[in-house]
């Protein structure tokens, strides 16, 4: 077992199954530091050819409460001043980064399972939606509350939700911005399985291990050639 500790993330590799924990308890809020580190870790995972399946989870009681709004606003204003000085049309660097990391995760050559307990809101739910499987505990709470702050989900959450649950439900959940339960998530096709909290992570890892047998190194290398141009 290999363990790596970052500022906002821990990563363990256990017989080919990677376990990534968002590690800023209690709510594992996603700061700019988190996004940068997450990008780094995912890149390393993809480059190493050691991880055949990945489980993403949150340390402590919750998956994550999503982006730190204060942090985000600071960054937006900072980048806005910088942008005013350079090219106005350019997308802020951090948004591009966040989008790329979720996009890369979705097109990952290895299966990604989000193992969700407690709160899973906003960007955190978008992260879960970028995963290929969503397993959750019975008391998990989901939602895209961005519109209640006059914002919108900006990391692919809307189109992904539409693909999973259809147009009407997506409009309802996004515009109303209210949270929903694991049972509702399951019935909306936004979660794949509900597992007792005590067993959730273990079962997610077992599932990851069972499907990692389908791992093909050649495909992974082909992916690296396409996405990383190496």
């Amino acid at each position: 077992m290999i363990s790596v500790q970052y500022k906002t993330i821990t990563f363990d590799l256990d017989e080919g199954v990677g376990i990534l924990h968002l590690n800023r308890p209690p709510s594992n809020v996603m700061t700019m530091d988190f996004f940068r580190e997450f990008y780094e870790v995912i890149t390393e995972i993809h480059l190493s050819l050691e991880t055949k399946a990945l489980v993403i989870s949150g340390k402590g009681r919750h998956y994550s409460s999503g982006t730190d709004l204060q942090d985000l606003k600071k960054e937006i204003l900072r980048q806005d001043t910088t942008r005013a000085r350079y090219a106005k049309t350019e997308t802020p660097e951090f948004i591009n980064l966040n989008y790329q990391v979720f996009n890369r995760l979705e097109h990952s050559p290895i299966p990604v399972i989000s193992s969700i307990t407690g709160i899973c809101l906003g960007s955190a739910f978008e992260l879960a939606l970028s995963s290929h499987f969503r397993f959750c505990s019975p008391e998990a709470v989901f939602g895209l509350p961005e519109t209640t702050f006059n914002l919108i989900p900006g990391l692919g959450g809307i189109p992904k939700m539409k693909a999973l649950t259809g147009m009407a439900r997506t409009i309802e959940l996004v515009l109303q911005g209210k949270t929903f339960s694991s049972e509702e998530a399951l019935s909306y096709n936004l979660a794949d399985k509900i597992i007792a909290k005590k067993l959730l992570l273990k079962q997610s890892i077992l599932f990851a291990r069972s499907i990692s047998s389908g791992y093909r190194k050649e495909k992974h290398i082909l992916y690296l050639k396409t996405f990383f141009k190496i």
Partner: protein
Amino acid sequence: MTRWEIKEHIGILTLDNPPGNYILEPEFVPLEQIKEWTTSAEIKGIMITGGGKHFSSGGDLSQLYEKIQKEVDLSDQMDRGKAVLDFLENLNIPVLAAIKGICFGGGLEIALASHIRVCSDSSLFALPESNYNLIPGLGGTVRLPERIGLPESLKLILGGDMISAEEALALKLVDYVVPGTDLLDFAFRFLLKITRERPLKVIQSVMQILKNSRLLPREEAMKEETRLFCELALEEARRKN
């Protein structure tokens, strides 16, 4: 044959040719007219319904044959009808069809162009055109498979059979079924619930992203999403500072 009213920032478009609410012209409401009605900054959502007991029985065949005898340019008329439905589908505010009673042919095609479909428990749906050796002509053959898949679409289009509200729900042809007496109230409240507390710009951004995911290549759609997000975030950040 259509009526327009505004209630609490929700525009209500009523197909008003009872009892059957037959659609006499493919362009059931003039495009310019619907544009003028719906693009006011005041409107945050649209409900389409039928006057009286039914949503709509669809096109009127005798009218259609009469047109052909008079050598009216049918293709042009169909294009105009389609332009109205495209306009509704592409609107950047939610369009909800509140369906009761009969929802056949062109009526169902109007419902299919809406973003959300709610119906009463006694509603009936059909695309009966093939029974008359015709086919749905207002985009139904394109939109229906997008909503419910090809096999079920073929059953409805070629079979020409009628299905119930319950069956429509199982096929995901409709999103909600409610008791008939609650329909208009439910539909109106649904629209209020998702729009009342939201600035128009937020509503428009969400609907634009959904539209982009249908019309744009993935990369472009993602870029547009980022652009829309940044616009709103920047506004909020400046406002809070």
